[in-house]
């Protein structure tokens, strides 16, 4: 994006005082999770879960859901957290706390659609990272989860224009960023970057937010951007997209992000992508379950 547009966007976001603030729970959570999986402090996570009655109740509800098929009902938050595992608890915490960023009536992309996509991309990013033996699978997960926060910004700072843009994308079955570029003059990657910077998220995550659609030069963003870019595409093709049909054909093995990753992570060359894709349908089922738990009527 041109510097001028970015400046104007920045000015617009800050001047109208509509900038979403970082959720209270998010910073300690990011801190807690920004370390190797084996060093994650379970007690701290249970504590964070317990801060918020809604989230605590959701953890318990999810632990009791059909997905886990427990014979004994789960009643305590701690047991729920242990049964769900860190990943799912974190999914719940993130989607909840980020959902609080904007008021319920201001969502333009339906929250269920948004979270199905964001959590789906996060999950696929982590799987990709595991396959690649990328050293920080949790970072990849976070990058996937946060990559579309610009959609929240757009919903807040330019609700009418963004609503029209989303309708145009849905109607014309074109990629959202393409529709944004033509009607708003900037994309959710641009506005997401502004928010990510304001939230003081680590620079590599900011890059993943900013560049996930602009993979032109993969060297610039490095592996994290490429992982998010490919996971985003895969999810949009496996029923974890923006809720509308995107008639496109993707040849992953010839995507610049893929070629870049193959060069740096030889493991990728041996991946059975077809099988990986079939596996995504299982994820879609799990993510669907999680999203319906988070957004179930209370």
């Amino acid at each position: 994006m041109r510097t001028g547009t970015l400046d104007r966007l920045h000015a617009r976001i800050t001047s109208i005082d509509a900038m979403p603030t970082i959720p209270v729970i998010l910073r300690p959570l990011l801190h807690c999770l920004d370390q190797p999986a084996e060093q994650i402090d379970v007690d701290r996570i249970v504590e964070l879960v317990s801060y918020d009655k809604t989230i605590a109740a959701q953890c318990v509800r999810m632990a009791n859901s059909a997905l886990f098929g427990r014979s004994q009902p789960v009643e305590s938050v701690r047991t729920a957290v242990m049964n769900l595992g860190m990943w799912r608890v974190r999914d719940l915490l993130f989607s909840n706390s980020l959902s609080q960023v904007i008021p319920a009536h201001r969502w333009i992309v339906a929250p269920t659609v948004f979270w199905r996509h964001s959590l789906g991309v996060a999950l696929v990013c982590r799987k990709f990272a595991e396959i690649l033996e990328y050293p920080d699978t949790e970072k990849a997960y976070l990058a996937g989860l946060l990559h579309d926060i610009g959609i929240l910004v757009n919903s807040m700072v330019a609700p009418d224009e963004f609503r029209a843009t989303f309708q145009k994308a849905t109607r014309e079955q074109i990629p959202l960023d393409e529709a944004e570029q033509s009607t708003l003059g900037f994309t959710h990657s641009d506005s997401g970057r502004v928010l990510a910077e304001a939230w003081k998220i680590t620079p590599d995550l900011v890059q993943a937010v900013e560049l996930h659609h602009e993979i032109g030069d993969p060297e610039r963003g490095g592996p994290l951007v490429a992982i998010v870019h490919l996971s985003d595409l895969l999810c949009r093709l496996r029923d974890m997209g923006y809720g509308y049909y995107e008639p496109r054909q993707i040849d992953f093995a010839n995507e610049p992000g893929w070629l870049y990753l193959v060069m740096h992570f030889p493991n990728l060359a041996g991946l059975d992508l077809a099988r990986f894709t079939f596996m995504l349908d299982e994820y879609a089922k799990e993510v669907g379950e999680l999203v319906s738990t988070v957004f179930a009527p209370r």
Partner: protein
Amino acid sequence: MPNESPQVANERPPVEGISDPAWIRIRDLIYHVSGIFQAENKFYFLVSRCQVRMKAVGARTPREYLDFLTALPSRDAEMRNLLNEITIGETCLFRSLPQIDALRKIVIPSLAEAKKKSSYTKLRFWSAGCSTGEESYTLAMILLEETQTRLKDWTFEVMATDLNERSVAKAREGIYNDYAVRNVPPEFMRKYFTQTESNFRVADSVRPFVTFTRLNMLDDSKMLFMRGIDAIFCCNVLIYFDGKSKTRTVHHFYNALLANGYFFLGPSESLYGITEKFHLVHFPGSTAYWKPGDSLSKAGAA
């Protein structure tokens, strides 16, 4: 006459019976003749199919049945009967909706776009392993719909082949029960079917576009004649093939396809480890293998 004899009870042999060397020999014989190979985890399927035939011919043990399959004069006919039994599959019209969407919204437009340049306005689809014709008629109905709307002035044909003679005969009949047509959208139902007393008959407007032929995909001499195809559909057929036969067949498919052509497998089949000549491409909710044009083909690919 009702038969409560011990033979009936023994129809389903105990698990250890499966390791009877005669079953292995039958399995190897089927492979030798047709290239259809039942791996260990598919063995129960092979045994159950054989048992249907054993009952029909009155063979009491796999050893006895093996004689029917190897001794003149019965062997050729019986092998065909057994193959019929093995390859008979349950299927329905409009089985995979994501694949149909991909065809209509992405594949057919892309094929037409590529072919327009050569001003050759005919599309040729091959339904390979067409069974009783559900997929073949589905393809014809979709192409008919497209050539009446977006692709006016275009023509098309669907070549449908199967190893199983009985399936081919049934496919030609083009009559299906309500279970087989359960996925057909109402507008297609109205346009392309006539209802008989208890069944649905494929309309005459569709039939001229589909030709059904018996074809053994492992018969190299016959496969060499299949050329100039835009899209091949081979769903849950290669799964019965061993690696070598699969590679050979897929090689034939590759050669049969025009550049930019598509090869569709069953929804959970993969060509991984078979060939790298095709590019796996993703559509919303489905995948296919794409034959690149000359400039994009991988040099030296297996």
